[in-house]
């Protein structure tokens, strides 16, 4: 299982069928505090990298969720919509945000692996 990370504190789990599951990292949920609302993209929408795909709101503030790659949304996490606290309690599992069909898999090479992301956190 390959997991990539972005400097915006998102993770992507690359699946064998050319899709990726996207969520926010433990660092992100800790920095946000209690998540109270998640605005997810519509299934079927296509995005370019750095587009705002959704919004994650904590008690104090709203933060943009960026699309890390080019692709089309194939599924969103309805359980997260119903219980935003999953983003805090299980950010890398049940708290996933959406699944995207990768239009340009080569874009993954530019993302961070775990070592690089951990280094980024250490130097933050």
């Amino acid at each position: 299982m390959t997991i990539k990370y972005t400097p915006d504190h998102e993770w992507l789990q690359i699946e064998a069928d050319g899709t990726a599951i996207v969520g926010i990292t433990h660092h992100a949920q800790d920095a946000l505090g209690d998540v109270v609302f998640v605005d997810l993209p519509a299934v079927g929408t296509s995005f370019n990298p750095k587009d705002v795909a959704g919004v994650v709101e904590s008690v104090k503030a709203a933060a943009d969720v960026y699309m890390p790659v080019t692709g089309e949304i194939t599924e969103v996490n309805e359980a997260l919509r119903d219980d935003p606290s999953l983003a805090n309690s299980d950010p890398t599992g049940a708290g996933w945000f959406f699944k995207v069909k990768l239009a340009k898999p080569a874009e993954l090479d530019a993302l961070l692996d775990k070592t690089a992301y951990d280094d980024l956190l250490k130097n933050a």
Partner: protein
Amino acid sequence: MSADLLTTPLHALHIELGAKMVPFGGYDMPVQYATGILAEHKHTRAAAGLFDVSHMGQVLLKGAGADAALETLVPVDIVDLPVFKQRYALFTNAEGGILDDLMVTRRADDLFVVVNAACKAQDIAHMQQHIGGLCTVQPLPDQALLALQGPQAVTALSRLNAGVQKLTFMTGGHFELDGIDCFLTRSGYTGEDGFEISVPADKAVQLARALLAQPEVKPIGLGARDTLRLEAGLCLYGHDIDTTTTPVEGSITWAIQKVRRAGGARAGGYPGASVIDAQLAQGAARKRVGLISTERMPVREGARIVGQDGQDLGIVTSGSLGPSINQPVALAYLASSHAAVGTQVTALVRDKRVAMTVTTLPFVPNGYYRG
């Protein structure tokens, strides 16, 4: 921490307790502890929360004419305020706008005043400039202020001094807590029963630890303080009331006793009285109201409110998810024509439209102890 931020006597204790610190009113303050804002909010409504509010300003007004002098700055009855009773007051400006909101308690030999942290310096200067010749204005920089709030606050505090039980909402008294001379008022900023405790700064940590040792008590940060006061429908100065809002527009005319209104024995005599009396008689063009939503998206400060025809009706001044009721709540100024309870409006949030309804305040029932 920025070198420019001030600290309260409990600063090291907050760090020790694992607080996330943020700047507020010029101070480095705890926004939350490890459990987070939602848990801290719910704990306060169920048990007892301890807040450090030492950043706020405490001031004594002393001398025989202090009450009449303060009445020249506020549209509130201070002269007939009974001893050990507390009242909510407002400093006004010449346009009838609000310079700050404050709490005033008459004690045996002085008036005990608490003002907001962000306005502390201006308020003290305001009092010194305008009434410094009529009474002594004495800031209390060596006093800390703790708030213990929640339905079990009295149970917890009674273990330190059972005498606190005799206080009722908006009354005060001197009590020894853990061997420390403190001045308490039974009031606060959460909508719950509770106490605000003025304690010497050099004893504040000792008292805080004695309170945290009670099983009902947890430390609570400013994040939950804001969601608690919002659910209680209480104004935050600088957001829901400011120099451009009158008490009539702000829906806080209950703070203006009859004796200070046109026709009363001590009518007027404070800045902006003519504007405020005119609005008391004729109404104001806009009003602060409560808004509630059945959807999930929070509606926050700055969101515009529109009506059925898309017409602009006003703006949100405070808003968040209300943790106790699990619904978005907001305070907003709306055109008076559309401010009646039950009016359906729409909030514009990013590119979305959120249906909201004008509702009565508070959003959550008060727990005040009236005896």
